[in-house]
């Protein structure tokens, strides 16, 4: 076995995979802008992707905010800089932790559910049946999930931001002896449009990645229950990794001048 041949084969496989994903994403995006749009399905998916993710996203945001306050207090008190706790919690949650934590939780929940559902439809020929009923499966299955995820993720993250800051507030005032009134005014004075909006932009991109990876892996699954299981795993792992990579790129674009 020739080493170069092996490397070449892996490289070609990589190109084929990225090419297939790019074609799929292109089809999905053009599907979003060409009628018909299935509004009822978009609404249903917003419930499933956005609304039902609220508990898990809210809880993780709450504890993350609390832990953030504790750790920053711990670090800042070495320099007598405790007064910065509210600001750092606010910036940390809105810029990074809100979108990333919510994104990862939703990736685990939603990318898996989408891949399992669409994958099952694929292996039981339901997607072929859609085609024969002259309904484009991309428009009927992918577009509603994509639109719903892109719209609901920013809303989810906005809520997660509030709950995360609340978590920091409760940890600080109950555990660390901060003055409640001061903490609040310190937080409110330091909210900036850029911090919040950058987080929401990230959220929308994460929503796109999550739905895309769920749908793409579902569509490609083959061979029964085992195939669907593999697609589900791949969907979650690839969505999470792509999400973190995209976060790095977006942070560069949004903050590093």
């Amino acid at each position: 076995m020739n080493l170069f041949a092996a490397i070449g084969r892996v490289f070609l496989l990589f190109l084929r995979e990225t090419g297939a994903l790019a074609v799929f994403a292109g089809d999905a995006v053009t599907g979003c802008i060409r009628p018909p749009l299935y509004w009822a399905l978009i609404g249903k998916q917003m419930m499933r992707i956005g609304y039902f993710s609220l508990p898990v996203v809210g809880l993780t945001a709450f504890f993350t905010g609390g832990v953030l306050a504790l750790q920053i207090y711990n670090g800042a008190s070495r320099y007598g800089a405790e007064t910065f706790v509210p600001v750092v919690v606010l910036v940390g949650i809105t810029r990074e932790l809100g979108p990333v934590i919510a994104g990862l939780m939703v990736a685990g929940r939603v990318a898996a559910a989408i891949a399992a559902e669409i994958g099952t439809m694929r292996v039981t020929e339901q997607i072929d049946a859609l085609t024969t009923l002259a309904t484009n499966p991309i428009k009927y299955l992918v577009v509603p999930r994509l639109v719903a995820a892109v719209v609901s993720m920013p809303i989810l993250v906005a809520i997660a931001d509030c709950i995360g800051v609340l978590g920091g507030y409760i940890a600080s005032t109950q555990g660390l002896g901060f003055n409640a009134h001061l903490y609040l005014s310190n937080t409110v004075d330091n909210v900036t449009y850029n911090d919040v909006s950058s987080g929401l932009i990230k959220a929308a991109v994460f929503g796109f990645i999550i739905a895309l990876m769920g749908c793409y892996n579902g569509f490609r699954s083959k061979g029964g229950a085992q195939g669907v299981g593999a697609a589900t795993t791949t969907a979650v792992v690839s969505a999470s990794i792509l999400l973190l990579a995209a976060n790095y790129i977006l942070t560069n674009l949004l903050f590093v001048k």
Partner: protein
Amino acid sequence: MAGGSAKVELKGVKKRFGDKVVLDGVDLRIDHGESLVVIGGSGTGKSVMIKCVLGILKPDEGQIFVDGKEVTRLRGRARDAVLRKFGMLFQNSALFDSLPVWENVAFGLIQGRGMARDKAHEMAIEKLGKVGLGPEVGALSPAELSGGMQKRVGLARAIAADPEIIFFDEPTTGLDPIMADVINDLIVTTVRDVGATTLSITHDMVSARKIASRIAMLYQGRIIWQGPTAAIDNSGNPFVEQFIHGRAEGPIKMEVRR
């Protein structure tokens, strides 16, 4: 061959999966208004053949014509327009498990033709009646039905939009003999009253004799015999003879190790 014009025609269609050749140059025409039955052993590529016609699978070689126009490489809207002429019963029904039974049946009416939902509901219940299912079944989910009931819902879905061409992939498999005969009658009347062109796949020779105006046999990726239904008993073809009499001995070797 009958004088009618070809509704669907396959010319030299080849399809392989990896090294495995499934279709090896299929030539077949289905004339307007005829009821063709394709017989053949399990795994000979009957389902693959109709999936090629519908464009679910892309043939490696060959051409497919519908109403005289080549459809082999159509995409997007042009393909949807052709598919609107078709109804299809999948071998394993392929019902949408996220939708109730009636919406499965009405799917082509609502999504494909933009019919209002209550009108489509009415039509769906009527079609369910034709396959022997009462209106109460309409509200159930497909997972709550038996295999034979699912097959009949799939049948109702295939005929719901009164398509010009209907493909039935094993319409009577898994049904009791009486219901199988009801379904045979339904296929016969659909062809006669609506003027539909049908292609049915079956292993059930009773059903084949009843619904077919012509029978074709697929073996090793080719059509090895075709002729009017009446000619099947003296085809003079040893493969056909063996198949219709269901003998283990003969030119068709089943790949079983003893």
